[in-house]
């Protein structure tokens, strides 16, 4: 296995509030990492640092041979110009809690937007692949539907297809089922499960402990801006060593 993501001493503050207090981790190619933890622990911020939606105050994030958002010159990091940053960002797929589909475009138009506008693929080719992707998330019949006509679960599946259309090296999921009605959570998790089975590298911030236990290769538990425990779900979820992690798990598992 080869490393595809490496984070070293990632620190991030909003004003005086330290959200990330030195986070280190590695993700192997094809691995599924679930990040769990209480609200306000910095899970989403960490995820948003990986594709540089947030810049860092210290530390470094490396994805598949490149430092994200910066160029290393000697021992200093220089901010990348926007054009180069965009080249990195399009290699990293992201699925948001609130879907963030483009409401003025149909499902298919949402999916082909990246390939056509950014990768300059011919439209016919992008559409063919877009239909394939929508079919693979179970939405073959909804290509022409606008987001407003779709349920939350369907929207999130379109959002996943939209990210996959860019053929990303890794996929980030920021609480993908938190905004869904309970009966719609399953359909999105099923798509993610299928995606994991194809060997896609996934980093998933979630509250779905059962999903983490079944699908994740490893789980990380973040409390107060630090990863307190990290390892195979069977180990971490069953025998947490850290007191804060124990109290968090006892609340969510009961």
């Amino acid at each position, binding site marked *: 296995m080869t490393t595809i993501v490496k984070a070293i001493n990632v620190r991030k503050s909003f004003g005086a509030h330290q959200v990330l207090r030195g986070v280190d981790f590695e993700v192997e190619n094809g691995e599924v990492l679930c990040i769990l933890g209480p609200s306000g622990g910095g899970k989403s911020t960490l995820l948003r640092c990986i*594709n540089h*939606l947030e810049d860092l105050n210290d530390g470094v994030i490396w994805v598949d041979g490149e430092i994200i958002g910066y160029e290393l010159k000697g021992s200093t990091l220089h901010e990348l110009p*926007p*054009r180069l940053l*965009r*080249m990195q*960002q*399009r*290699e*990293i*797929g*992201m699925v*948001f809690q*609130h879907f*963030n*589909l*483009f*409401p*003025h*475009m*149909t499902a298919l138009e949402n999916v082909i*937007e*990246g390939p056509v*506008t*950014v990768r300059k693929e011919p439209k016919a080719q992008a559409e063919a692949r877009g239909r394939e992707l929508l079919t693979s998330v179970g939405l073959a019949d909804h290509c*022409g*539907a*606008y*987001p*407003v*006509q779709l349920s939350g679960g369907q929207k999130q599946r379109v959002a996943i297809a*939209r*990210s996959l259309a*860019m053929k990303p090296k890794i996929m980030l999921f920021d609480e993908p089922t938190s905004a869904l009605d309970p009966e719609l959570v399953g359909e999105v998790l099923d798509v993610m499960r299928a995606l994991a089975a194809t060997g896609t590298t996934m980093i998933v911030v979630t509250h779905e402990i059962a999903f983490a236990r079944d699908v994740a290769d490893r789980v990380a538990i973040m409390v107060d801006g630090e990863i307190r425990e990290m390892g195979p779900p069977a180990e971490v979820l069953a025998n947490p060593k850290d007191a804060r992690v124990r109290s968090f798990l006892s609340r969510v598992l009961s």
Partner: protein
Amino acid sequence: MILQRASGAVRVDVGALNQRSYRIVRLKHVGRWIGALVVVVALALLVQAFAHGQIHWATVGEFLTAGVIVRGFGNTLLISFFAMIIGVSLGTLFAIMRLSANPVTRFVAWLYVWVFRGTPVMLQLLIWFNIALVFPRLVIPGLYEARMVDVVTPFVAALLGLGINEGAYMTEVVRGGISSVDHGQTEAAKTLGMSRFQTLRRIILPQAMRLIIPVMGNSAIGMLKFSSLAAAISMGEMLNAAQQIYFINGAVIELLFVCGIWYLAGTTVLSIVQYYIEQHFGRGVAGTPAKFSFRLPFRSNTPLSGGVEESKA
């Protein structure tokens, strides 16, 4: 129960509910019928009054299609159209500049709005018209040279004055529209690797349009009327032409009515155009009501299922 009594609902014993199905009688809107009657009578009196007033309707009919009036209206349309194009272009440009991360461009946009929104449009028209007093010659070194009075004709002065002033207002309108679009849209575009320009053009502006268009429609209608100010700088638009005629023949009200009819015709057409543009940019929005529509107000504004309709188109 206390609440129920307070709300004035009629108390019914639970035992009285002995049917499974009831016929429903709609509330009668007596006030509406009385109101309609009053309006009809008032309108009839108004028509009656004007029909017997000191107006020579034949003169109105005669001048409605008079060459000089129609040409004047053509000029009115021409100025309005191009001033609006200038206004919308400048407005979009400066709105983007005002929202830029660059403090220099932000300042330039702020300065533009401050100056051109902060002075009367009439003043600006007069300054453009008299610009030759400041700069007698327009010189682009090595490329172009001319007398300013030949370049800035009344028509050009009207275009510059109205267009640049409109642009200052449009800047604020477009800025409001852009700011109203959820930040998640920008983030989603970023994760796809879209540039700032691509994000604006493909994602943000089409959504901002829903808010911008109704205001822009207002502006376009306003512009059609404001263009009459150009009469002050001897631009031969319709109102100017009408005045010149009634100074001679004395048919003051008749010619003003002619202008009124043409202005109403113009604004009606604009309202219809606005309705269709709104329909276009309303796609993907649940229950877009036909607000600000040109439809007569008698029909209720039932929400159209905008998304469904448009997805077929």
